[in-house]
């Protein structure tokens, strides 16, 4: 058996090697083995609704143009001109007929095909093979309006990649034929390793203390339910783990936080449709909680863009129901901005913790003692009703161990042939499909 190059998480003890957060060589390898292979969330249908619309995004560190061409097809192309490597698009978004490189005016279609080169006959003597010189394209697939892309032609389909996690994601993203609408994003650069932001999204252990100030002020002033450790740790919410993805979920009404505690209820108005699309159990009985998709998607949706071992650009969008009135969408978006995002009551308090967790791997002493994500070891099982590996504890570090195990699987693999996928077992009753 091949020796594992990386063995950073001990599944028996939960010991985690913090070197993974700050070693520049590991980071460089991650850009190839994780971000070069995985399906990455890069945008949303509502950001490019019309032909000619484009949105500038990133796959790992690499700049990417997400466009909708004249046929309505969605394309993802590396924003690097094939001639000298200048960026073809310099704006955040827009609408155009073609992409013209500002350096020498090489011109590409909305699908990345090279359409025109100045002086093709006069200067290049007709030697340019335009068919070979389009923008580098990524594979693109969508799920319920969420747009994903991968550089790896060998990667499994998005459907297989999401696997049974989709059964849970449908609870939020596939409730309605009209789908969802994205607002934003906030963009800000934080001094952390990208992995810290992803693992924290499913860490409810920190919430009663890290976010006490926000939770208490919201309780006092806005009448939000209390989010104390006593309340949180007794919650019966569960989490499911599939292919390194994590989804927390609740059975209503007994497991919930009294409905949707810190949010405008975003599910009530499409309740009946959700039951028709997803079936009684999912449409009526379940609510999605925090969720993360390997490697760098923290859904609501948010994208964690690596910028270096200890630097990350965080993109925070607000997701609303497209079927809702503009007033309600706005209320939901503003609430999301006030709680998370760059100026969020909750999120602001996270960053120094994340930064210190990430940078601890710089110190010999910290590497020697390691970190411990050992809460709830052994407490997962399979279930007849709920697909994936299930944790019956809501506050748990199962999520961290699954995430870092998945990271190891990517980092130790030579290709997708060596990366396992959990078998798909879920029954997708109703009409909701991959395309929403």
């Amino acid at each position, binding site marked *: 058996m091949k020796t594992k190059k990386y063995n950073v998480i001990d599944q028996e003890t939960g010991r985690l090697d913090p070197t993974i957060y700050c070693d520049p060589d590991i980071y460089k390898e991650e850009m190839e083995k994780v971000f070069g292979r995985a399906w990455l969330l890069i945008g949303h249908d509502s950001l490019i609704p019309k032909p000619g619309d484009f949105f500038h995004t990133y796959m790992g560190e690499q700049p990417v143009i997400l466009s909708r061409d004249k046929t309505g097809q969605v394309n993802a192309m590396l924003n690097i001109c094939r001639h000298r490597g200048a960026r073809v698009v*310099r*704006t*955040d*978004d*827009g609408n155009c007929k073609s992409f013209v490189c500002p350096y020498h005016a090489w011109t590409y279609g909305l699908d990345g095909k090279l359409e025109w080169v100045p002086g093709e006959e006069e200067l290049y003597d007709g030697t340019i093979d335009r068919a070979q010189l389009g923008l580098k394209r990524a594979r693109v697939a969508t799920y319920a309006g969420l747009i994903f892309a991968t550089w790896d032609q060998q990667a499994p389909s998005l459907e297989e990649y999401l696997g049974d996690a989709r059964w849970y994601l449908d609870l939020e993203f596939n409730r309605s034929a009209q789908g969802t609408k994205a*607002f*934003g*994003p*906030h*963009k*800000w*650069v*934080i*001094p952390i390793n990208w992995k810290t932001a992803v693992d924290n999204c499913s860490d409810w252990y920190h919430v009663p*203390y*890290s976010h*006490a*100030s*926000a939770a*208490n*002020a*919201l309780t*006092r*002033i*806005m009448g939000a339910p209390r989010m104390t450790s006593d309340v949180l740790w007794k919650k019966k919410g569960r989490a499911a783990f599939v292919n390194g993805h994590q989804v927390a979920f609740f059975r209503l009404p007994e497991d919930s936080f009294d409905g949707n505690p810190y949010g405008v209820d975003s599910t009530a108005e499409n309740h009946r449709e959700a039951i028709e699309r997803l079936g009684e159990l999912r449409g009526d009985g379940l609510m999605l909680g925090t969720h993360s998709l390997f490697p760098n998607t923290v859904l609501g949706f948010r994208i964690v863009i690596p910028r270096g071992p200890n630097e990350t*650009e965080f993109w*925070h*969008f*607000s997701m609303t129901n497209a079927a809702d009135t503009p007033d309600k969408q*706005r209320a939901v*978006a*503003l609430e*999301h*901005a*006030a709680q998370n*995002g*760059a*100026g969020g*009551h909750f*999120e*602001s*308090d996270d*960053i*120094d*913790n994340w*930064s210190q967790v990430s940078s601890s791997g710089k110190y010999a002493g910290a590497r020697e003692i390691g970190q411990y994500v050992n809460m709830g070891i052994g407490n997962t099982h399979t279930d007849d009703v709920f697909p994936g590996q299930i944790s019956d504890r809501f506050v748990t570090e199962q999520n961290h161990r699954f995430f870092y195990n998945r990271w190891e699987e990517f980092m130790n693999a030579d290709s997708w042939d060596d990366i396992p996928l959990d078998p798909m077992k879920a029954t997708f009753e109703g009409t909701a499909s991959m395309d929403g």
Partner: protein
Amino acid sequence: MTVTTKSALSGLFDETLWSTINSFYIAEAWLLDDRKLREWLDLFTEEMVYYMPRRRNVNRKELDREIPARGTDLPYFEDSRKLMEVRIQRLESGTAWAEEPPSRTRHLVGNLLIESVEDDGTVRAKTAFICHRSHGETATALYSGYRQDVLHPVDGSWKISDRTVVLDANVILDKNLAIFF
């Protein structure tokens, strides 16, 4: 509005008004930098809105899209008095870790332009600012931008009913927006 030296000197340039509002802004900046956030919040009306939009990179011909219109987008802040109260109570708690220990900030507010004066004394004013933030051991951030305020004369001073803070940055190069402008 179009700013010309002539109109600035004649129409709207009431030296007394300009001085009193400029003094108000200087005092306001000291309240922020001296961390007297309660007194700072008292400078706003009960119906206040504290608003900070995103800023987009767009082509010159589309500059009307650079700052998304209020109500159409995901701003960094669009806070009512109640939400501002949440923010300040949070900071006062001693466990608002983003500001614990608190940042050292330095707000330099200038280039005061009085954009309009209404019959009831309501003033629309625009100011530019530079704000340096120093937090913890080595974290620093530099913000620049402008503010547009709606001010009302109240008891010999001014109250702000509406503040728009527009940062010059597209991507914010700071770990969080846990300070005020």
